[in-house]
């Protein structure tokens, strides 16, 4: 059985071109880039190239890029640095639908004495801009709002948010982990101070990320140690993965137009076909303002994990929300914040595509899913009630 992988918001395949670039840097050119000898120095050169490529991906200069160990570290580093830069300010603004990398950090910060505003979203997952502007205060140390949501794909008005924050002189960080590589992201087009991205969402390996820090924005290192990353992130560089992220950044620039056409087309086909063939199904999130690769679809009266298990047996890899779920049975915090009714929230499945998907795969999914939904609904004590209402 071949695998149909439509879980690209969780993680992606390392592109073969990326792996090729990385391979020599494990057992062959394994020098430490900080070394005096040329064996290490040549590695430093490759890292410099990677930095240029990753900078280019988001319209930054190379000195503005700090390589990190993942999107989560980038988020942590950005938030902690902003707070250290304004130690007298005790208020943070974020959204209710951030990734745990920001959300759980904010909860931890509440325990450290910070006040956090979680800007709500409407039932389509749209950012409540008025609520946001009203919560800005002189005490606000940082605004951190994601560019695009990992579960629904809904894209936030980061330009407006950034400009509003800049007006008040408040630093703005955006978690662009899901936006980068899927829609155009250019730091020159909005006054963003810091921006997080993660390698494994754009066909680089897991365990490498980057933080853009605008020139002139004060930065306090999060991981403190040696002089790596111009003293802004200690620890021997994750050489092969950084080189991989560089190559993946280059590929992402190449792929972007195809994401907007081919990938969007496949996603739309899948979405529309499922909506047509499965009754009592609905899309979570604003369909217009959304990443072209993502669809979150709720099937009434059944539960997500059992759907996932069934399609897994059919070789289809998808997700019921964030990949970082524990044993909790609650619908994801994103769907809860959107007040998606329980009857469809519990049965929500996210399909997230990449340029490596094919139309055949979409057809396979569209054929495989309906009988599974039917089978599960036939044993659901809530299916009748749904049906009745119809």
């Amino acid at each position, binding site marked *: 059985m071949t695998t149909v992988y439509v879980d690209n918001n969780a993680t992606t395949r390392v592109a073969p071109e990326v792996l090729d670039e990385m391979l020599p840097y494990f057992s062959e050119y394994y020098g430490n880039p900080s070394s005096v000898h040329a064996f290490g120095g040549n590695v430093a050169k490759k890292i410099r190239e990677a930095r240029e490529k990753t900078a280019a991906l988001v319209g930054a200069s190379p000195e503005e890029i700090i390589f990190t160990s993942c999107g989560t570290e980038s988020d942590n580093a950005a938030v902690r640095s902003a707070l250290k830069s304004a130690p007298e300010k005790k208020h943070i603004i974020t959204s209710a639908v951030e990734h745990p990398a920001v959300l759980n950090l904010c909860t931890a910060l509440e325990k450290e004495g910070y006040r956090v505003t979680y800007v709500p979203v409407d039932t389509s997952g749209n950012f409540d801009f008025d609520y946001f502007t009203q919560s800005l205060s002189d005490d606000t140390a940082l605004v951190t709002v994601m560019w695009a949501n990992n579960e629904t794909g809904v894209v936030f008005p980061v330009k407006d948010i950034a400009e509003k924050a800049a007006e008040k002189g408040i630093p703005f960080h955006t978690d662009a982990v899901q936006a980068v590589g899927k829609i155009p992201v250019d730091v020159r087009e909005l006054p963003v101070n810091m921006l997080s991205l993660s390698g494994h969402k754009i066909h680089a390996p897991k365990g490498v990320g980057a933080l853009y820090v605008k020139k002139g924005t004060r930065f306090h290192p999060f991981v403190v140690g040696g002089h790596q990353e111009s003293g802004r992130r200690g620890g021997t560089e994750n050489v092969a993965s950084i080189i991989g992220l560089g190559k993946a950044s280059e590929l992402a620039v190449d792929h972007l137009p195809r994401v907007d056409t081919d990938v969007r087309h496949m996603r739309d086909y899948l979405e529309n076909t499922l909506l047509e063939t499965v009754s009592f199904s609905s899309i979570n999130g604003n369909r217009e303002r959304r990443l072209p690769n993502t669809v979150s679809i709720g099937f009434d*009266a*059944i*539960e997500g*994990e*059992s759907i996932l*298990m*069934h399609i897994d*047996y059919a070789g289809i890899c998808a997700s019921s929300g964030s990949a970082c779920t*524990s*044993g*909790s*049975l*609650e*619908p994801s915090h994103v769907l809860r914040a959107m007040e998606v009714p*329980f*009857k469809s929230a*519990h049965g929500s499945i996210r399909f997230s595509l990449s340029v490596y998907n094919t139309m055949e795969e979409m057809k396979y999914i569209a054929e495989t899913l309906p009988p599974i939904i039917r089978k599960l609904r*036939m*044993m*659901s*004590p*809530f299916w009748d009630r749904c049906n009745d209402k119809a």
Partner: protein
Amino acid sequence: MWEYSEKVKEHFMNPRNVGEIEDASAVGEKGSISCGDALKLYLQINDDGIIEDAKFMTFGCASAIASSSALTEMLKGLTLQEAEKITNDDIAEYLGGLPKEKMHCSVMGRQALEKALAAYRGEDLPEKEGEVVCECFDITDREIVKAVKENNLESTDDVTCFLKAGGGCGNCLEKIEDLIRTVKEKV
């Protein structure tokens, strides 16, 4: 990913006794759509007090479905006295074990069974006793204390695994911790 036993997987893929029993002798229902899982258990009991048939309708994850399937299989042919003795551990054992985080599925089976048997006896199960601690999953302090004692739970995570309590908004976690501490101190 959950490490489900082969038996869980098999009962999930091919659940036994799915459906309703019209004119069932007893019905027990546990869970709700907001809780994320729910089980409606139907029993057909003959005049000798023997469970002739058992069926279920379940909304929930793979292990919830498998637990329901297992429970109905276990029940068929038992006397009421025998049925009463089935614990959540028995259900889990029948399935070759459940991941700790999924033990609440077996607990749900046990609870639905309790309700069905009480209904059969006409006993109108006593209103929930105690105070609701976890609003998200409607769980009382009594239920938590009972589970902590019976299953020797040690942490709030354990309680969430067995009762789901605490696995939602998390507001009740402190109260749960207090309850665990009280139980442990008494021992």
